[in-house]
Structure formats: structure tokens, C-alpha cells
């Protein structure tokens, strides 16, 4: 009896289609990826057992660490409008270039008097520069104005209520946090979010 010969088939698979799909997906994810933005101060966030996921837009973040306060708002147009309005309050006008630079900053912590100089720096200098934080004392409560104007800008542009979040370092002593909360309450922001990590309730 003749042996049945099994035809030896090639193990090569055509991977062109797979490769195409893989790179298509890769491109999509690279485009949509939003990288974690560096905090100006190291912030270790505390854990909480019942958290909600924050929306991506329509949000303002107050970062607190090392007794310094930083402020940032999402959205290029809101940033531009906020800068213009706050500038008016302190009799400062910003050039289009400075406004452009400002609209790319995720967060900043510079008093209004030094903001012009800060925006004029090149990116390398900006990184090295230690930001002093936004003044929150009663003499010059600039944070109040920043939050207030950002809320107004969001109202005017998107007709939404800006969601305020506080990102604070675990080791930060309470007075700074308390003062920021008091600033929010002064403009009747009684609801806000604290950025936390999730932990399992034990």
C-alpha cells in the first residue's frame, strides 16, 4: 500500500493585513493618548474608598504642595479668556505670544506681577524656574480672581458650571487647604472634588 503523503504546507502566514490593523490601532492610540502632566511640585495623593472618575474637560485643578498653590484650567479658549480678564483686573495686558504660551500651560503658580516675565521664558528656562505659587493671603488674593474669572469664562464660552478640583499633597498641613476651601466658599463654590486614588475599603 502506498503511503499517503501529507503535503507539506508552508507555515508562512501573510501578516500584511494584521500588520496594517496593528499600526492603524497604534496610530489611533498615539493620537488620542493624553500623557500625564508633570506637577510643578511633587504631590502624593491620598487614598479614598469611594471615588468617581473625573471628566476630561470643563475642569479646573488647584494643586497644593509645599505650601504653594498652583492653578490650571482645561481648554485653550478658557485659558486665554481667563488670562485676559485677570490681566484687566491688575492692569496688565498680555501680548498675543504671551497669551499663546499661557494657553499651553496645564498649570502655573506665578503671581500676576511675575507672570509676564515667566511667559517670556523659553521652555528650558521655564522648567528650571521654581514657581513661587499663587498668592492666597488676604492682602493679595489672586487665586480668588483666577478661579472667579475662569468660572466666568467657562460660563460665557461653554455655558457650563466649571468643576473645581483640589489636588493636594498628603503631607500638606491643613491651614493651606483650609484657606483654599475658604476661598472657594467665598464665591459660593460649595461643591468641589478632591483628587484621590482608589483604595479598597478594609
Amino acid at each position, binding site marked *: 500500500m502506498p503511503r499517503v503523503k501529507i503535503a507539506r504546507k508552508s507555515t508562512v502566514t501573510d501578516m500584511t493585513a494584521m500588520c496594517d490593523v*496593528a499600526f492603524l490601532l497604534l496610530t489611533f492610540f498615539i493620537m488620542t493618548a493624553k500623557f500625564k502632566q508633570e506637577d510643578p511640585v511633587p504631590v502624593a495623593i491620598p487614598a479614598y474608598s469611594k471615588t468617581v472618575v473625573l471628566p476630561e474637560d470643563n475642569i479646573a485643578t488647584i494643586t497644593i504642595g509645599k505650601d504653594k498653590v498652583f492653578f490650571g484650567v482645561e481648554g485653550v479658549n478658557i485659558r486665554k479668556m481667563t488670562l485676559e480678564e485677570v490681566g484687566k483686573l491688575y492692569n496688565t495686558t498680555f501680548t498675543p505670544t504671551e497669551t499663546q504660551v499661557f494657553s499651553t500651560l496645564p498649570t502655573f503658580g506665578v503671581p500676576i506681577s511675575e507672570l509676564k516675565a515667566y511667559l517670556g521664558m523659553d521652555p528650558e528656562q521655564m522648567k528650571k524656574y521654581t514657581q513661587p505659587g499663587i498668592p492666597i493671603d488676604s492682602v493679595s488674593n489672586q487665586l480668588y480672581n483666577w478661579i472667579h474669572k475662569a468660572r466666568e469664562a467657562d460660563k460665557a464660552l461653554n455655558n457650563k458650571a466649571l468643576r473645581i478640583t483640589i489636588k493636594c499633597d498628603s503631607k500638606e498641613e491643613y491651614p493651606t487647604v483650609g484657606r483654599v476651601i475658604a476661598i472657594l*466658599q467665598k464665591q459660593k463654590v460649595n461643591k468641589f472634588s478632591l483628587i484621590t486614588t482608589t483604595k479598597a475599603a478594609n
Partner: protein
Amino acid sequence: MAELDTSGGGKHKGGKVRSKKSSTRVDMTAMVDLAFLLITFFILSTTLNKPKAMDMAMPDKDEQNTQLPVAASRTMTVLLGSKDKLEWYMGEPGKSAPTVDNYGKEGLRKALIENSDKVKSTHGGQPMIVLIKPSDKSNYANLVAALDELNIANIDIHAIVDITPVEIADLKKNGIY
């Protein structure tokens, strides 16, 4: 690597020596591997990076006239001190001795659950009200930890209130200020 030579490989008898036609196939295994590795990375890094937060609602400071009187015996006051310690007392300040406690399962949580049950049984099912008073020496993690314990103990009515000098003096007495 992944390709097996399946051609006949027979000899050409006589005639001209033809140059072998090389295959135009490229081995894409490595490229696909890399592509999927990167995809995995981007998928994971985008979904895991969503910021999480807890919602906070503070009492409205301006509307004094809408406040209802509540029995002091229903309130529990938690004072946050330094060195990750706290103290709590029931009712009005000075009437009952505060208990120094720590954060966590055996400390604050136990006290909250016990007091909550006690208040419910003595006040006909009315819930306990908790006032959190962070002192200047407490840190942010303490505040979040205290709020977390409230959440775990299912106590809905709570507020963050400014601390009074009497209470600071008491914290000092207990060595946690």
C-alpha cells in the same frame, strides 16, 4: 526564521545559469510584535490614567436662617491633631472627656460605628451628625482619612468646621498639637 523552504530545489540541467529569483516576502513577525506591544502600552496607559476624585459638599456659609436646631447629644465632634492622632467627643465641648484615638479600623471607625448605633437607639432612629474640626497641625491625608472612615461607616451627615481655641487647648493638653 518563520519561513520554511518548500521549493523543490531541483537542479537545472544544462543551459544557462539563472540567477535565483529572491522572494519579495518580508518577515513581518517582529514588526507585528512590536506594533502590538505598543498598542498594549497605549491602551493601558490611556485608561489607567483617568483621574479619580471624591466629591465634597460644604455647608453654605451665608444662609444662616435655614439651619435647623439639632440636639447636641446627636453630634460627635472629631478633632484632628498632629502625629496622625485625633480625639473625639460626643455632645457639647467640655461636658464629656474627649477620647484620643487613631485613624483606622480599630480607632475612629469603631468609635463612629458604636456612637452611631448609640445615637440611633437613643434618638428614635435619627442619624448621628459628625463635625470634623481639623487643627492647624493636622495634614491633608488626615482629613481624607477621616472622611473615608465616615464613608465606610455610612454616616451621611457630616461637616468640616473651624476649630475653636478651647478645642486647641484640649489637643495641646493631650499632646497632639
